[in-house]
């Protein structure tokens, strides 16, 4: 390595400080992009989660309604309705657990 003179040292110090600013800007931009990516990932997860919860809720209720309408009798409707109720309670309980965990990890 060759000896550095005064002018080179001045230029190097200036460049080092300028670079520090560039790297601060890089850090800022990277973190903005990372946060944006995280939000978009979170939104997609929530959209998928909500879709499945809605589907799993509406379909059995529609089934109970269909059975009630088809005139299979009150007993059949009630027993089917009861099992669907149990299913929905379990579903919401699990959904609540999952969403709580999800919030803790992502918020």
């Amino acid at each position, binding site marked *: 390595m060759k000896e550095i003179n005064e002018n080179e040292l001045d230029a190097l110090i200036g460049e080092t400080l300028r670079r520090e600013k*560039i790297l601060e800007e*890089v850090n800022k931009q990277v973190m903005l992009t990372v*946060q944006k990516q995280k939000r978009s990932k979170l939104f997609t997860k929530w959209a998928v989660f909500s879709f499945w919860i809605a589907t799993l809720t509406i379909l059995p209720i529609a089934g109970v309604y269909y059975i009630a309408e088809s005139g299979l009798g009150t007993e059949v409707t009630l027993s089917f309705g009861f099992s669907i109720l149990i299913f929905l309670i379990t579903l919401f309980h699990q959904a609540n657990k999952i969403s709580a965990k999800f919030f803790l990890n992502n918020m």
Partner: protein
Amino acid sequence: MEDKDIVQRILRHGETQCYSLIVKRYSGIVFSKAICLMKREDLAQEITQQTFIRAYTNLDSWRGGSLGAWLVSIAAHLSLNELDKLRRERTDFMEESQWKEPEQEDNEEHETLIQILKKSIKELPPDDQKIIRLHYFEEKKTAEIAKLTGLTPSNVLVKLHRIRELLKKKIENERNK
């Protein structure tokens, strides 16, 4: 905090803000690699940003070796791709033989000096850091620096001289190691 712990916190607990520590820790060497290859500050900045974003997206594929080396390899890969693209664009206007390969060795030496200086500046007392920032980065005149720091102009000059001598000495010491 060690790199491995930071990565675990990001992957397991979604603590994205920890990623800033990784960026701060390695942006210097990643930028150095990018500028060695790209030769342009704007392109090197772009490559550095892309490197960290790509690394974040593929963080789970990091095998646990040296994180710095992994990031530098991503930066090199992105830089070479970009250079290839630029080269292809260039050959539309000139012959392939006219393309000059970058002077790798000079650049690496320059980058080493910058890394040494960066480290040395960080080790300076805060007041001295402020003085050189005002002088070299904000390009303030001695009288203005004196006003901002509460020193006399002659004191500022003396301090600047001492800081430069100290930095020069540190460079020499690092070079001799």
